[in-house]
């Protein structure tokens, strides 16, 4: 599992530390189970484990939340399993993130669509950043975009996801808003995780880095890299407040790597309400706020129908960009 899942898991783990679940609606799961669509130790796995443990500690669920690892296909194996074999399992919820919607949008879960499951809610988001080495001449996001416009071959941008993955798409979203016409000219180099990409940035192989705010934090503190822009609607809190948003610099681009959950499509209305409520309460807890603050997770508090709409918009945006670079037809 590379960066996306890895980061997702950490974030998710943190996010999941939130407790509390309302017991209204009359439904109580008998064997609550969180499916992590990746191997143990990956990002989705951490999300499931920490959320599960929190729910357990807060006695939101009876007994323990069992974590099931279902690795494969970047989450596709778990998605297919939930759709085909567990469609009416009221006790199951599954970790998801931007990696899930990216693959859904690009048809990388063959035969599956977002309508086949019920989207429960989000527990936070890690906003994208675009950074350069500390000694780079570039100071702002428009500087970088101008450099790309004048000679696209001179700028290599590295990130932790595959081509067409979220780290790549974030750059393209920003470039699109900055008025770059041929997005295919932008040179994106895929690495196994954001850390490896930052190392290559420091080593001089790359000119810019695209990743999540939490990934960049340590290197900003040490003075090795500087963040040109954070792709958030407004400034982030706490340690991240110094990063200028892209919007402030005239490029209206937002890229959030959200963390959340879905449930099987055929669950009962009571069960759906129950899990939506459980995740809301987890998000609202003090413990969760602390986890978010420590890990650079920004608020993203969506649940139920609202979250469903968010996921649909997310998928549509990814599809448009993916078509533009020729990744899908």
């Amino acid at each position, binding site marked *: 599992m590379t960066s996306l899942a890895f980061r997702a898991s950490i974030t998710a783990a*943190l996010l999941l530390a939130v407790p509390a679940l309302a017991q209204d609606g009359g439904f109580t799961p008998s064997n609550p189970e969180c499916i992590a669509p990746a191997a143990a*130790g990956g990002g989705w796995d951490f999300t499931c484990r920490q959320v599960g443990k929190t729910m357990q500690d807060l006695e939101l669920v009876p007994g323990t939340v069992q974590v099931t690892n279902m*690795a494969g296909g970047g989450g*596709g*194996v778990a998605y297919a399993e939930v759709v085909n074999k567990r469609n009416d399992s009221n006790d199951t919820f599954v970790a998801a993130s931007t990696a899930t919607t990216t693959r859904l949008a*690009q048809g990388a879960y063959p035969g599956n669509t977002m309508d086949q499951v019920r989207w429960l809610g989000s527990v936070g988001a890690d906003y994208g950043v675009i950074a350069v080495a500390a000694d780079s001449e570039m100071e702002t996001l428009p500087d970088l975009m101008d450099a790309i416009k004048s000679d696209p071959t001179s700028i*290599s941008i590295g990130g932790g996801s595959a081509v067409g993955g979220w780290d790549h798409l974030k750059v393209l979203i920003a470039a699109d808003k900055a008025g770059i016409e041929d997005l295919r000219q932008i040179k994106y180099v895929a690495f196994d995780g954001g850390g490896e990409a930052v190392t290559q940035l*420091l080593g001089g192989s790359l000119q810019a880095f695209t990743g999540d705010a939490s990934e960049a934090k*340590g290197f900003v503190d*040490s003075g090795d890299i500087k963040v040109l822009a954070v792709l958030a609607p407004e400034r982030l809190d706490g340690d991240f407040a110094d990063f200028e948003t892209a919007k402030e610099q005239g490029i209206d681009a937002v890229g959030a790597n959200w963390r959340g959950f879905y449930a099987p499509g055929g669950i009962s209305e009571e069960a759906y309400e129950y899990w939506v409520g459980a995740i809301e309460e987890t998000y609202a807890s003090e413990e969760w706020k602390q986890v978010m603050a420590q890990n650079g997770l920004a608020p993203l508090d969506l649940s139920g129908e609202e979250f469903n709409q968010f996921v649909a918009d997310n998928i549509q945006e990814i599809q448009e960009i993916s078509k533009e670079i020729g990744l899908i037809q």
Partner: protein
Amino acid sequence: MEALSSLADGFSVAFTLQNLFLAFVGCFLGTIIGALPGLGPSNGVAILIPLAFTLGLPATPAIILLTSVYYGAMYGGRISSILLNIPGDEPAMMTTLDGYPMAMKGHAGEALAISGIASFIGSFVATWGLVFLAPVLVAIALLFGPAEYFALYVLAFATLGGLSAKNQAKSALAAAIGLGIAMIGVDGQTGVPRFSFGEVHLYDGIDFLVAIVGLFAVSEVFLFLEHRGERSGPGEDKVKITGRIMPPVSMLKDTAGATGRGTMIGFVAGVLPGAGASLGSFLAYAFEKKWSDKDKSFGTGNPKGIAAPEAGNNASAGGALVPMLALGVPGSGTTAVLLAMLLALNITPGPLLFTQNADVVWGLIAALFIGNVMLLIMNLPLIALFARVLLIPVRYLMPAVAMISFVSVYGISGSTFDITMVVLFGVLGWFLRKIEVPTVPVVLGILLGNAMEVNLRREMTISNGDLWALIDSPISIVLWLLAIGGFVFPIVMGQIRKKPAGISATEKEMADPD
């Protein structure tokens, strides 16, 4: 020295009853996890993370437990390599080449002891390297861009032909099969799935573990079935444990050089985030073979062929902690899991870790020293016990091997698809063994092929397709020269040697280890 006083502080953190107990538990579980085919260090650490959470351990004890498992698994992997010809994890694969033949000759005890001592020295030196050299090493790691990594992998493949005792063409064929298998899955540089036939399970590619368990463990079971227990198999009844448990001092002296060279190579490979333990033990073995295989006894149970890769893989485990702690960049699957754990404990590895969380870092380093000594003390007396595995009749041993293999593979991915793949690889392994094609290069092809391709593609993207960029730095030029030398030299030497002796190189070779 500042590092030494920090280390002393670290020992005061690590020397509590609870931490020592956790280190002991971690070393013990790690050794077992490492020895079981299919379960390696990364799974071992991942499996124990929930335990650390459940126990509510604070950061330092939790990380002590997990790194002890990590070191323990690096030790344990060699046990099944030597006794069963089945590597317990990827980096222990090279140890099968000489370890198993040595055990078959009745020297299982000595093979285990030599490898245990080499493992100890490898990790001991690497941990000191971590203490004193971390900042310098980070600077070196930064010099490695995609072009340098590509040259490093070319070097690995160039020396691969020399591995097989019998037939270089067959080694090359095996490596090509491995490279082909490595191509399966979504290609990160374009986002397009290759050779996956719309099968979601293949999108992530073939897991090394699946390949190793299939090619080594399951094919062993097939061979046993084929002969209905008459012959072959690890528990072959003619094998006696005639050798002593402790190797003679002369053997230790003999392997000291191999251990030292293996340690250096392994440590450097570990420090480079794009390389890792498997490459480390492979290069250590390949180099040692070139360096000291005067009588062509590598592959037939030469103790140096055990000492070098074992020192190499344990040294790289220590080396891999350098980029993980100092850069937040995992150099291996295991360090990736450890990194995730650190982040969950609210410790951010990176340039500031050594100043911001000095107690955690130095406590961890002290724990590594403690764990390492513990492992040596724990492992040596157990050798007699381990070696008795060879006395178990094959008809009991083989079903157990099959069961453990399937359970561990299923336990990791929870997927029956992977079980099917293991069986298919078992059939492939059985077939390759029948036609005497070595299986080790297949796994090396899978392990290293992806990394080699990906780095070439990265460099080509960055340089806009300019091939000269591949030899644009002193490091890559040196690596290329070594690679060319390593490839051409044995061929030329073979020709020169052949003429006067009048014997073909093939005839001189000893039996294939398989």
